[in-house]
């Protein structure tokens, strides 16, 4: 098993949005998708996922429908709303800015050794 990183606070929402943006998913599917797209580098507690999903639904970023899974189980599917799509774009940008800035800061070399 590859070494897994702890999630930074606040990044779970972003990951869920990203995962769902690739197509409707049920909760377990979200978990698998995040694992898949992060190369299994990010650890998400299964129980922590659901409050996040409910929170995003309440904020109107996700919408839900009941459907049937590939192995014939009833499951609730999540999908991005227009607001969710917009939020994902914004969050992605701001994350990229932050990551670049922090990366640059960490990469800076002392001017005089």
């Amino acid at each position: 098993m590859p070494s897994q990183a702890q999630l930074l606070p606040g990044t779970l929402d972003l990951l869920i949005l990203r995962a769902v943006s690739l197509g409707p998913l049920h909760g377990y599917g979200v978990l698998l998708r995040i694992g898949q797209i992060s190369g299994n580098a990010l650890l998400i507690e299964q129980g922590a996922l659901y409050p996040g999903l409910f929170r995003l639904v309440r904020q109107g970023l996700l919408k839900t429908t009941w459907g049937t899974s590939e192995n014939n189980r009833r499951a609730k599917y999540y999908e991005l709303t227009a607001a969710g799509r917009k939020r994902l774009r914004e969050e992605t940008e701001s994350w990229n800015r932050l990551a670049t800035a922090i990366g640059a800061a960490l990469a800076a070399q002392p001017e005089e050794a």
Partner: protein
Amino acid sequence: MKFLDSLAFRIAALFRRSRLNDDMDDELRSHLDLRADDLERSGLSRAEAERRARIEFGAYQRVKEECHQAAGGTFFESVRQDLRLAYRMLRKSPGFTAVAVVTLALGIGANAVVFAVLNALILRPLDLPQAQRLYAIEDRGGSGYQSYPDYEDLRDRNRSFDGLAAYNITQAGLDTGKDPAPAWVYEISGNYFDVLGIQPYLGRVLHASDEHGENSAPYIVLTHGYWHSHFQDDPNVIGRTVQLNKHPYTIIGVTPPEFRGTLLFFTPDIFVPIVNHEQLAGASELEQRGRRWVFEALGHVKPDVTAEQATADLNSVGSYLEKTYPKDDGKLSFALARPGLYGNFLGGPVKAFVAGLMVLAGLILLAACANLGGLFAARAADRSREVALRLALGSSRGRILRQLLTEATLISLVGGTVGLFASIALLQRLSLWNPIPRFPIHVPVSPDAKVYMVALLLALLSGLLFGIVPVRQVFHTNPYQVVKSGATGVVGRRISAREVLLMMQIAICAVLVTASIVAVRGLVRSLHSSFGFDPQNAVLVETELSMAGYRGDAVPAMQKRMLDALSALPGVQSVGLGSSIPLNMDAGTGTVYSEKETDLRPMNAAAQPYRFAVSPGYFEATATTLLTGRTFSWHDDDKAPRVAVVNREFARKVLGSVEDGVGRRFKMKDVGLVEVIGIVEDGKYLNLTEDQKPALFLPILQSPVSQSWMIVRSTADPQELTTAVRSRLHDLDSGLTLYIEPWNHEIQGVLFPMRMATVSLGVLGIMGAMLSITGIFGMAAYSVSKRIKELGIRVALGARHREILRAALGRSVKLLAFGSIAGMILGLLATRVLSSIVYQATPRDPVVLAGVVLAMSLLGLLATWMPAQRVLRLDPLMLLREE
């Protein structure tokens, strides 16, 4: 909007909670199944896979709880938490809670009462079918009186009403076989009940088909109330024959209990056809177009006709009548008015009065809110440490505000409920109240759902209003600052707007207190002043002999027999009879001229005295002191020379002398020359606050009247005397209609306006006092809280109690003193206004001044008691350690 949306979402979530719960279970279970499927595929047994899936998932219940929270479902749980905390906080400071609740109860109660009156009198005038199309006809002057022929023409010639009914109010003697008594009568047109849509409760009601010309319909319809009180709900009364003014009438029906006539204040006892007017009034007026005696005509405007079209239609009938009967009908111009308050005649003043009350009540509530806001600010200041701590520990400002608002709402609900219950009790008494016993006057103001709603809304609104006051404080709380250094006690020297407001409140309160003390003094004094007669130990008997069938010469003969019979009763000292009695609001006036005047026109009159026709014995029976001369005897009849007794004022004004007045003469148009044979003391004749008026007494045998009051003076118990008088008079004629009442009861009607003024002033004074107390209390409490640390240090440094108290409460006391003085000065200036209502009102009276000072000091003491206690109990050690 966002807030509302989220609120709606949360409320919906609450109701959805069980469904949401199932939904959540389904979803989480499906997750476990899917995970187990995957694990099974990797080679585990089904049972092992499911076990592993559950372990991986973690604490199922906790996840669910977190999901609920995330979905917004726990809002109401946190509200419950808030409520519990608020309840605990309020219990911890019972003084604060009690003051706040009482203040609000006063404010809400006052508003509920006034709104109930507004609702009953203006918003829902008459409880009748299709009341929104029901209109009464009035003329441009605001009077609804019509002559009967004009009413008939209006009824038959208009094209806009679904029928037009008319009624008139009068009194008649009703004899049901025992103890005839006057009853209040609506004389009604035959179509009255059909036009209004009233179905009988029992028997049948009157219909237009019952009318066949004058005195053709000897039928009585009883109101439910009268049937209940006078016939004990006996269903066999239908078909019974009774005597009305000595004419046989048949009872044909009873109206439903909710129907109380078409004049809100005035509920009749019985309904009688208006075509029988002659038998009730003693004069035939049905054919006289010039005599406007029919009280009001009313009906439903047809659904497709507007009020303007109906008015125009009526006016076209009016101009036809003008042209056809130029002698009787002058300019006829009609308007439509809401029935129930007699159109704009009563409706206008009532509306203005109630609107004024509403404004006043609103102001009281606003003042209450301002004061409660002050109290809450003081409380919030006290709790600034707690608030700061909670903020520092990560509570959101919104959550803390919600807590404060929950407290305010809780107080407003409790206060509102208390106020509402108090107002309901008051309104029920008001509805039953019959201010003037002789008239069936009631103010039907029972509260309904609308009143409850308004009270509740007002309570919540004021809760928000005063709850919001400390919001700024909370938002500006800097947790680091407060926790580090404690609440900083900077007290501004500047006079704030709140202080000015408070001072005004105190001033108004002082005016009200002054006014109530003046009014009470005046009332007490007027009860003990000389009326020119003595209402104690006397019983009044009102008789209308024409109701019992007496006419002409039979009237004075019967009156003499009655007086003789009553004077023979044991214990009776004197008996007299008068056309009217003083202070009974029905005293007529006459016009007198000096002896030498030949041109007897009103402009040359010497005086306009009150005029009474009285029997021998009248002055003894009323206990009016004779100054000089003699009083009447039974020899002063229509064959004897014309004589009169006058009061001192009359003698002074018309005769020119009190001492030598006896024997002098004056002139009256209908009587001629009259010689004065006696002069009596001055008295009060129409009301207690009148200036001294001249009065003239003529012998009953020279100016006969059939309607009269007998005064029976006796030391016997009024109850027994009443019974004895009644049976004695019924021995003479069992058909006499009698109204018997102790004189000091009857006088209540006269004292009524003064009593009302005193009571209202008293209530206003108490309200003002309550508001001032909460105002001062709030401010004192606030200033103590703000400076508590400074005061503690002072105590530690050895300051004495007196100095500490002065530092803590000096400003509040100063405000109170300035406000009171201003109020007292205003009260003194308002004397003139007061004295028009209250007899001998003067605030320049040491008792009043002392009373006001005492009341205001007491008020100050009460208001500063709790803050002062807190200051005196200051323990600097505790305080400094805490800080």
